[in-house]
């Protein structure tokens, strides 16, 4: 393992110290818990937005704490859910009396800890709702959607919900829009090189020199199919077929596209991928309203990428276009 770290057991805390020092104008840490909150929270008249999960996904999750995005993030260890206590404190920190929406990926650890935290907050009399993101087509067949993992769909949701909350929506309205966003979003990933969790010291999986794996999860969970490396166009074609048929996306639809690097794939390659995505969508008469190409939700230094599509309606278009400003996500 070659990494620029000091102590494998301290990577999250030391990363957080650096992050807070660099972005102290926007974010701060709760004094008693590993929770990153937007400075000035809670915001009067606005539903609080909480997310959280394991670390190792920069810029997710904490890079999205900001204006027009989320208000608080409970920070777990690498690839491991934060505790119920952390999530509970995040909820309390951003509640202005208008309620709190928790947004999480579909992982059993996150679900149990959020469940417990939400129970505790409701016991205190707070209004709290949860939505669970499950956009990864590669992680389970369509008839088992409830088993699908949440990946870049979480980023799309934070953007949409952040804009909606800023408009002053109620908790009920916000939840409805959040669920619509999740319902309209599909992702699929591929990897050719694994990542190494610092404390484990060994890669989470191994692939042959000339092999790639379709459907690998954001924590190195094994995918659905291994095969010899293919070109950018062929790989993109495979992923897009799965994504398009799953919703399904149809001629005349308008979408946003996210081509996301998993940590060790350069922008150069991501744009080559996007080139093909754009061509396929054009040929399918699907209009790209906005494209995001870059690193939005990584998996440490994994080599690979994911493609995410969200079908838009008038409301989602307005919300996705709203400006946002966070340490690692700025949209004018």
């Amino acid at each position, binding site marked *: 393992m070659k990494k620029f770290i000091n102590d494998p057991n301290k990577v999250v805390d030391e990363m957080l110290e650096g992050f807070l020092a660099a972005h102290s104008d926007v974010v701060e840490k709760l004094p008693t818990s590993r929770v990153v909150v937007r400075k000035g929270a809670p915001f009067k008249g606005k539903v609080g937005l909480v997310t959280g999960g394991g670390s190792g996904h920069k810029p997710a999750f904490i890079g999205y704490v900001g204006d027009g995005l989320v208000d608080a993030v409970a920070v777990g260890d690498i690839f491991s859910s934060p505790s119920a206590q952390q999530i509970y404190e995040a909820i309390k920190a951003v509640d202005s009396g208008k309620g709190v929406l928790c947004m999480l990926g579909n992982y059993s650890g996150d679900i149990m800890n959020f469940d417990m935290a939400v129970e505790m907050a409701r016991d205190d009399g707070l209004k709290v709702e949860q939505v669970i993101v499950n956009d990864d087509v590669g992680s*389970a067949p369509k008839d088992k959607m409830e088993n699908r993992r949440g990946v870049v769909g979480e980023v799309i949701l934070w953007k949409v919900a952040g804009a909606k909350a800023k408009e002053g929506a109620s908790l009920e309205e916000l939840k409805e829009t959040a669920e619509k966003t999740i319902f309209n979003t599909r992702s699929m990933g591929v990897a050719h090189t694994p990542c190494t969790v610092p404390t484990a010291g060994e890669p989470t999986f191994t692939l042959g020199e000339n092999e790639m794996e379709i459907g690998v999860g954001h924590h190195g969970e094994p995918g659905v199919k291994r095969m010899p490396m293919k070109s950018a166009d062929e790989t993109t074609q495979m992923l897009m077929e799965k994504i398009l048929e799953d919703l399904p996306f149809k001629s005349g639809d308008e979408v946003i596209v996210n081509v996301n690097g998993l940590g060790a794939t350069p922008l150069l390659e991501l744009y080559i991928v996007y080139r093909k995505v754009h061509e396929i969508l054009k040929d399918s008469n699907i209009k790209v309203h906005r494209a995001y190409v870059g690193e939005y939700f990584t998996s440490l230094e994994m080599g690979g990428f994911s493609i995410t599509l969200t079908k838009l309606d008038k409301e989602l278009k307005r919300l996705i276009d709203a400006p946002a400003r966070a340490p690692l996500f700025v949209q004018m």
Partner: protein
Amino acid sequence: MQDKISFSQVLGSLKAVLGKLEEKRKELDRLDSPIGDGDHGRTISNAFQKLTPLFESSEEDIGVLLKKVGRTLALSAGAAAGPLYGTAFMEAGKVVEGKKEIDLGDMVKMAQAFEEGIKRRGKAEVGEKTMLDTVHPAVESLKKSLSENLSLEDALKNMKEEAKRGMESTKDLISQRGRSSRLGERTRGHIDPGAASCYYIIEAMVDFLLSS
């Protein structure tokens, strides 16, 4: 060995669990790699290390101790292990509140509550390739030992053996819970890491009790 377990023995057996999980850290990480994300040993060991401050406890009440253990795991340990073991220990603690020592009858009640806690929190059933596949046969074995009037020593030995058998049974099962459930058939042939760590917890407690 006597027919009752004292408060200090319970405390000692919990300390033994911490040592055992630390010792098995790498092995559990390796078990987790083919069907998970390779961090189970680290996660479960870190979760139980959070219990260290509780061992200074002076109040001699097994129920209170176990409830504190549960609360600490549930609230501050995170990951999936925190809420699952947390709920299990809290439930087990509730049925022996006020007790300074416990007999086989108490242990059966605790074990049943422990199992129910896991089922409730994880919404899992036996046979889905989880820690429950270790816990359930262990609980059944304790119940059987009680009905057959076995000594506490024999009951503990049998329970450990059945827990081991249960853990090994997960090798032939297909995962239906948690992260590994997405792999379906590919999980067959691998022991479930959660079932394995659960066995090591039982093994550490039993070995400590038998030797103390």
